[in-house]
Structures are given as structure tokens and as C-alpha cells.
């Protein structure tokens, strides 16, 4: 039986050691030519994304992909999208947003001003979700959200605030389960197959390019949200980023991770208290 060819179809690597050598060389080439450092990305997902790019570019080997990347910056842009887009949705994991409303917002009310860092914000679904939540809770006015991503292209999408209309049914369900207080449809205007969210939601948002693997801390924050971004990093890089977050958080600042991301495997486990263990919401205590 012939299996249907999907975008995940990958040329079967015949020689694992050769493949690893090719991957190492490609990542080194990308780093030295373009300055993006993927050398400490988690290997299993990285390989899947490289295989997908091989299939899409219709090249047979990673070495061929490397040659094309080096000579064609547009090919690099395509790979950068593959490697940096983190699939997400509005109010993904509604229980997280519910916990944020109930356990973090009361803390924010006690601050005159709140700085929040959404690290690895991708196409912005999470940023808009957060802005809606904060607005409903009456604290958006005195909040600034710094939304960063490695990839300038996804930030452009995020700034535009247009998401697929077809996703709105799912997002509406998520919104309701997250403790949303209104009719979700009040937040967007349908235009063709897109749902346009108002620019008022990003009035207090600064979108900026930032590379977690290489760049330094750029401010002090009361809250850092970084969900399902570090799962694509190896342990050493995760440790680096946790160091960056620790340096960037004010004392008693909040750190929020994805549902299946644990501080336990990092060298910063002792620096935080659990605010909500299941939702992976932590508070810096030292």
C-alpha cells in the first residue's frame, strides 16, 4: 500500500551517522552565515522540521539543503519559519488562563504598573488572549506587554492581529472555559476568511525581535510567560534561558510555563515557589 505523502514525509535517512554530521554542519553554517543559533535545539523535533523542509524544497540530502541555504537567503527565511513557528492558539489550555485570572491577576492589582514578557510569542495568539484577559480584569491600562520572538516575520503577523476565521469556534470555546466574561465575538470583526482583532488590544504591547538562545535580558519584569517554547531546546539551552528569565524577573515575579514543562529538570528549581503546580505557574523567591 502506498502511504499518502503528507508534508511530514521525509526521505528515509540511510546512514544515521552521516545524517548527524550533515545536521551539525548545516547548523554551524546557519549560525556563521546568518547568526541564528539552532545548535542547542532538541534534536528529535529539529530533525522532523529539517526533514519537512527537505521535502518542501525537493532536495534529497541535508547537505543539498545547506548549499541552498547558504546561497539563497529566501531559503533561509523559509527554514527560519519552520524552526521558529510554534503552533499555538488563542486561550490554548483554558485552565491556564483561568488560573492566571484567579491567582495572578489579584497580585497584579497590587502593583501600580506591570511589565509582562511573552517570550517566544510566535504569531501572537497568546498575546491577544492575555490582553483580552487583562482588559476584562481592568488591569490592562497599567500593563505593558513585551512580546518577543526570534522571527521578524511572525511578529509582523502578530502585529496585524488577523487570525483564521475558521479557528474562531475553537477559540470561542477556549475563551469561555478560560473564564471569559463576554461574548467572544465582540473582540473581532470578520473580514473574508480572517478575524481582525482591534488595535486597541495591542496599544500596550511592544513587539520586538529577541533571540532566547543568544540575546540578553532587556528589562525587569513582573511576569514572564513562556509556554511550549523551551520544549524545542535541549537541556543546556533550557538552563541558559531559565537563567535569563531569573535575571529578568523581579523578586516575587511570576514565571508561567507550558503544562508539560517542569522547573524540576533545571538548575533554577530552588529559586521559585509554586503558585499553581498543575498550571506550571511559579513565583520567584530567591
Amino acid at each position, binding site marked *: 500500500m502506498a502511504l499518502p505523502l*503528507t508534508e511530514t514525509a521525509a526521505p528515509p535517512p540511510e546512514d544515521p551517522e552521516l545524517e548527524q554530521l550533515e545536521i551539525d554542519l548545516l547548523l554551524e553554517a546557519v549560525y556563521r552565515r546568518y547568526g541564528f543559533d539552532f545548535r542547542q535545539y532538541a534534536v528529535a523535533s529539529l530533525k522532523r522540521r529539517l526533514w519537512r523542509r527537505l521535502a518542501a524544497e525537493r532536495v534529497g540530502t541535508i547537505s543539498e539543503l545547506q548549499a541552498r541555504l547558504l546561497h539563497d537567503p529566501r531559503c533561509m527565511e523559509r527554514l527560519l519559519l519552520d524552526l521558529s513557528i510554534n503552533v499555538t492558539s488563542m486561550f490554548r489550555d483554558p485552565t491556564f488562563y483561568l488560573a492566571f485570572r484567579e491567582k495572578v491577576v489579584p497580585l497584579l492589582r497590587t502593583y501600580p504598573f506591570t511589565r509582562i514578557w511573552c517570550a517566544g510569542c510566535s504569531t501572537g495568539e497568546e498575546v491577544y488572549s492575555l490582553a483580552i484577559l487583562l482588559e476584562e480584569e481592568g488591569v490592562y491600562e497599567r500593563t505593558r506587554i513585551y512580546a518577543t520572538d526570534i522571527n521578524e516575520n511572525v511578529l509582523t503577523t502578530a502585529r496585524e492581529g488577523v487570525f483564521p476565521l475558521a479557528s474562531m469556534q475553537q477559540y470561542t470555546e477556549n475563551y469561555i472555559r478560560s473564564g471569559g466574561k463576554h461574548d467572544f465575538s465582540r473582540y473581532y470583526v470578520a473580514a473574508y476568511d480572517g478575524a481582525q482583532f482591534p488595535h486597541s488590544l495591542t496599544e500596550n504591547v511592544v513587539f520586538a525581535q529577541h533571540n532566547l538562545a543568544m540575546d540578553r535580558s532587556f528589562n525587569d519584569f513582573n511576569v514572564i510567560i513562556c509556554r511550549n517554547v523551551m520544549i524545542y531546546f535541549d537541556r543546556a539551552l533550557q538552563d541558559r534561558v531559565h537563567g535569563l528569565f531569573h535575571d529578568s524577573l523581579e523578586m516575587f515575579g511570576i514565571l508561567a510555563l*507550558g503544562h508539560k514543562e517542569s522547573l524540576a529538570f533545571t538548575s533554577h528549581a530552588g529559586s521559585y515557589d509554586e503558585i499553581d503546580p498543575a498550571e506550571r505557574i511559579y513565583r520567584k523567591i530567591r
Partner: protein
Amino acid sequence: MYDVIVIGTSWGGLDAVSRLLDGLDDAVRQPIVVVQHRSVESQEGALARILGDHTSRTVCDPDDKTEIEPYHVYLGPPDYHVLVEEGHIALSTDDVVEYARPSIDVLFESAADAYGDRAIGIVLTGANHDGARGLARIKQRGGVAIVQEPETSTRRAMPDAAIAATDADAILPLDEIPKFLYGLCT
């Protein structure tokens, strides 16, 4: 020697994995990673509790980077792909593959890649063809491919697809799979 057992199943899978774990001899110490197709809303930990009643092995929904230990059963968490790297679990939120997240192919391909001829893949009952490509990859990398006998599967589409995609080392009724694993692993 084998270092990891990966199992994929969908329709009818809960019962099938339960029975497989029930019948598996304690001497089989290899870590087991299971993808059972499940809905996004499925309750965290519920599947682990149910399967935990059928085995003295530790059954859990792993976090990213959870160390892979002997005598443990790791379940693909809802809405994440579960992959294995040498020695630990790796999760991803990449797009659904063939409508599934977790996807059996994603797990199996990662096992083939990280463990090569030290991986055992098992495709059980299911109503789609997820797992076929992954099982073929395991076999191609020198690992062992086991498929539940289609005639005795609750749904035969998935075993049929796996058998069509690769030259399976064993096609067995569910109750004979634990014995076969015992022979391989001890």
C-alpha cells in the same frame, strides 16, 4: 539488546494496552512509551490511572525532558506529540499529523532515529493508518516491528496499514504479544 518499547493504538486501545500490560512479565524491564489517540480535553492523568491498575509499572504522563527509566510506562500527553531522544522524553506542539496529536508516527520515527536497532515498535487496534510509516522506519533502522493480528483486533485498519507498510517480524493475537516481548527482552 533492546532499550525501548513503543506502542501505538487508537480505537479499542485502552483495553488492548491494559491487557498487554496485564500479561507482561516483570522480567521485561524496558521502558514503554505509548501513544493512545486521545482528545484534547481528555483529563490529565486519567488514562495513567486506568492503566496503572493493570500493572505494577509506574505509569505517567511525562513532562518534557523526563528521564526514561526502566519499568516505567510513559503516555503521550493530550495535545502534545511525544518523542524519544536518547535517555529522555521530548514533547512538541507541532501541527497535528494525520489529524492526531499525539501522533504514533511521530513517536515511532523518533524511536527509530534515537534507538535504531534497540527499538521495538508495536501497532495495536485502531481505525486509521497512523503508525504504519513509523513502524516501517523502526524496521528499516534494524528495530523490531510487531503488529496485532488484524482479525482479532477491535478495529483492524491500523494493523492492516502497518502490515502493508512493512515486513513485520511478528503478527500476533494480543494475548501472545507479552510472551513474544518476554522472549525478545530477557
